[in-house]
């Protein structure tokens, strides 16, 4: 608004700040998930993900080797080890009793009630010495306050894809969503062409029907269709879910494609007709190539929807390893691994990775589809 002298720069600042605040608010939660997926279990429970860049302070509890394994050296029985098991970390204080876990200073020998001397160094090395033979098979417990440097790992991803079964679920999701995206496109394209460019009685009625079916809640279709699938022998199977996704996606597909095709220039189609082209030829050679943007828009919608869907998969697919999709697997993990954030965060990120890539690569078509698809 260049007309208002003096307020311009202040307004620009306000607008920029407002946009920045919105962007931060909207990306912050996802970013937290991404950061968490690269942290290990102990770090996640020790500090919030926003502190991931800084060293984390944590309490470590370590049980030393059994006393009867102590070796005799220079007249003393000696046991040594490292409370980080050789990993990174820095001890700031330690203790030998659970009541006072940080009572003693690093590098200063401490004598316990049993007459054993314990020394802990900053890097985690410890030595327990005793003038008399140590007895028993339970090692002494050492409590330490440690500072662990920021650390990121890919381990979670390996674990989630393998042991937690998400790799298999990833393949199952692909099995569901790719055919469920490709098949409705052709079916809908032919119907959309007929509704856009062919004259016949009842056309307006069918268009109205398609618009109406756009909003029919899926919940209504679940029970009757599951019964139908069981009756005709499809049961819980990939064929069933492909058909279901195709059926549920058709209204939007027909609606989007018809709206786009109606807008194509009439002259092209009429001159093709004059030249003797049949409707079939016009459709294949002229309409289909020209409608590519609308086809791409719908394909993205349908792909995102089938990839992200949970409800249809829960109803039309089984719960076995060869049919469980990623969203279903993630839901199960939320139940069974409620507090294991390294597993949950990583699994969630694996499930949303493909849609995010598709989203950023094809955003243009997605926006175009949204603009055409919302009933004006």
């Amino acid at each position, binding site marked *: 608004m260049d007309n208002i002298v003096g307020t311009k720069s202040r307004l*620009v600042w306000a607008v920029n700040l407002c946009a920045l605040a919105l962007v931060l608010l*909207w990306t912050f939660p996802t970013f937290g998930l991404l950061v968490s997926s690269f942290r290990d279990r102990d770090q996640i429970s020790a500090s919030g993900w926003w502190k991931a860049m800084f060293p984390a302070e944590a309490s470590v509890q370590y049980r030393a080797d059994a006393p009867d394994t102590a070796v005799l050296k220079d007249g003393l029985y000696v046991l040594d080890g490292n409370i980080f098991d050789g990993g990174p970390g820095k001890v700031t204080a330690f203790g030998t009793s659970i009541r006072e876990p940080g009572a003693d200073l690093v590098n200063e020998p401490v004598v316990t009630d049993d007459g054993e001397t314990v020394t802990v160094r900053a890097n985690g090395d410890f030595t327990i010495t005793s003038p008399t033979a140590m007895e028993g098979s339970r090692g002494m417990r050492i409590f330490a306050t440690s500072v662990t440097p920021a650390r990121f790992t890919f381990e979670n991803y390996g674990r989630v894809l393998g042991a937690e079964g998400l790799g298999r679920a990833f393949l199952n999701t692909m099995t569901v969503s790719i055919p469920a995206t490709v*098949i409705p496109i052709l079916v809908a394209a*032919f119907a959309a062409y007929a509704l856009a460019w062919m004259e016949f009685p009842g056309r307006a009625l069918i268009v109205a029907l398609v618009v109406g079916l756009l909003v029919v809640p899926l919940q*209504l279709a679940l029970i009757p269709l599951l019964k139908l699938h069981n009756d005709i022998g499809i049961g819980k199977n990939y064929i069933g879910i492909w058909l279901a996704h195709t059926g549920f996606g058709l209204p939007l597909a027909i609606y989007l494609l018809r709206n786009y095709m109606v807008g194509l220039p009439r002259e092209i189609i009429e001159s093709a007709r004059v030249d003797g082209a049949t409707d079939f030829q016009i459709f294949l050679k002229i309409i289909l190539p020209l409608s590519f943007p609308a086809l791409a828009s719908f394909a993205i919608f349908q792909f995102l929807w089938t990839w992200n869907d949970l409800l249809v998969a829960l109803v039309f697919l089984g719960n076995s390893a060869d049919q469980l999709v990623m969203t279903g697997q993630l839901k199960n993990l*939320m139940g069974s691994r409620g507090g294991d954030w390294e597993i949950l965060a990583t699994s969630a990120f694996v499930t949303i990775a493909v849609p995010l890539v598709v989203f950023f690569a094809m955003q243009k078509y997605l926006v175009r589809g949204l603009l055409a698809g919302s009933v004006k």
Partner: protein
Amino acid sequence: MEQFVMAAATILIGVFGCICYFFLSNMALDQLYPATGPMAGANINRANQIRPWLFMLPALALLTVYLVYPVFVSIYLSFMDAEGDNFVGAANYIWLINDDKFRESMFNNLLWLVFVPAASTFFGLVAAAVTDRIRWGNFAKAMIFMPMAISFVGAAVIWKLVYEYRPDGQEQIGILNAVWTWMGGEAQTWLTSPVINSFLLMIVLVWIQTGFAMVILSAALRGIPEETIEASILDGASPFQIFMKIKVPQIWGTILVVWTTITITVLKVFDIVLTMTNGQWGTQVLANLMFDWMFRGNDTGRASTTAIVIMLMVTPIMIWNIRNAAREAR
């Protein structure tokens, strides 16, 4: 491996089958009513009457089986008992009205219906207005739009981490509790505290839907004729006045469309509630209640009745959409 072969085969059979169907049925039609000979004119007319239906047959068949037929079966089942064998009259509907869980779901759904479309549209409008005026607007738009690509289950995990609770004294790892305790509050188990937990679930959907509202409204804002804005600048209107009094009234129709579209999404909301609270602690909604009766209650009568209620709530918007589409076609 086997399932990939099956999936690939399905794509091939599906695509190839479609093309074959359309090609062969067209050819058969041309054979039946050839466009040559003494009857050429009449034949062309007759073929042109039949051809649209050939083009639409697969789509119409699928629509009928997968969307129209279930509506009628659901209505039928809602008057039947749990197994769908015996007619029970309006018993399911009477049970529904008196059921506490249903009332709770209905109340929550109404809350969702007010809060989510209002908040999403508001934030979408603000986001559209500010991102259209800054140099890095496209980047900002992409970031706000991004949650649209994330599944509801994924979003549930993301926000569960935000709402995570650790007992007092432990380090809070959920940002909400971290901020809350930093401000001097006591750590809360947010998702089990009634009423506020429903709103926390709604925030997840608002977070997802704002991008949608922003994209549509931004396009509408850019479509406003320049002259109206120039005229108001000449008349000395402030930027805020221009936005509220010149721009917003002109895109009122689009705002309504965004509102109704989000309303429909809200009525069907299921995944977020199922995965975050499973309808416990007073967060139940209709779609999840229906799912409960379908799989845990194994009662197709009650489940269908609940589904019918969702359908009834969608119907006004459906009629409105059909009317608008019909008016546009004219």
